[in-house]
């Protein structure tokens, strides 16, 4: 396994639309392993897409299992992924290995259905929500030449999910 070089904005290769994967041979398996090693080499990184290492193919890896208190599907290798259903929207903070030292607020669907192939070419389908759904949408954007910078929303707007507080009531004297 090798840690691959991450392309950084404004590298033009980050703006191209990636090609579908057709071969699931050993070369491809080795690439997946390298891509995963690259993701793991970046502190706190929960996802990576092949175009970020200069490979214009439709592969993303996502693993949000290190985050506490969320639902997730563990480590995911999604090949030729398609988001086939969306529901709701939410704002969250995102950063990117390809855009160091900057984070910003981005609107994403709250729940999605993703259909894809696994790394060996078998069909998979996931329904996911929240942080994991956000990560998958962020990575799939890379396959279409989009960065979170293309989707920033103002700090002035408040579309964040709110915690609801209940009045404590007046029983105390």
């Amino acid at each position, binding site marked *: 396994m090798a840690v691959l070089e991450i392309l950084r904005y404004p590298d033009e290769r980050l703006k191209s639309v990636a090609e579908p994967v057709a071969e699931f041979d050993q070369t491809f398996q080795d690439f997946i392993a390298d891509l995963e090693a690259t993701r793991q080499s970046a502190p*706190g990184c929960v996802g990576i897409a092949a175009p970020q290492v200069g490979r214009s193919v439709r592969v993303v890896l996502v693993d949000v299992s290190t985050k506490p208190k969320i639902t997730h599907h563990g480590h995911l290798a999604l090949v030729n992924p398609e988001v086939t259903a969306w529901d709701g929207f939410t704002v969250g903070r995102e950063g990117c290995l390809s855009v160091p030292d900057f*984070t910003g607020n981005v609107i994403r669907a709250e729940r999605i259905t993703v259909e894809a192939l696994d790394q060996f070419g078998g069909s998979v389908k996931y329904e996911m929500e929240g942080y994991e759904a*956000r990560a998958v949408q962020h990575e799939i954007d890379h396959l279409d030449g989009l960065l979170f910078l293309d989707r920033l929303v103002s700090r*002035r707007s408040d579309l964040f999910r709110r*915690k609801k507080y209940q009045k*404590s009531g007046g029983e105390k004297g």
Partner: protein
Amino acid sequence: MDNWYMLALVGKDRPGIVARITGTLFEGGGNVGEASMTRLGDSFTVMMMVRFDGDKHALRALLEPVSQPLGLQLHIDNIDGRLHQHVEPDVRISVLGADRAGIVAQVTGAMAEAGLNICNLETDVGGSEAHPIYIMHIEGQALHGVDRLHDAAQALLDKGVEVTVSEIDALIG
């Protein structure tokens, strides 16, 4: 030489302020770094980091022929700062409600006591003159943990101020 300055400019808003000031800086060999500029009331306010080879007096001499005719107050400070010193906020606090005196002091006082370090604060007054509503968004760091801020928000609600605290967990992908 690598001198950084913090410039603050305030004056009545009119078209062309930003273009004139930054154009003069550029022509005089200055380099604008990070900046925050906004219209507040009928004033326009500029805060920006500027890199400039000369001393503070030379920078003032460069800008005053432009800032004075524009009616802008100019303030210049030497700073140690440089770029790429972002502080990542991990919490967002929203306050919505009927406007009344003391709301900012009450909320920020309680939050400071609970360990909030404010990175960014924006407020607006909306509604009508007769029934103004107050909207405040804060992004900051929960130095003593988010639970302390939730407790403070709960205590404020019991005093009639609706405050919500949301965690920001920046997704790196």
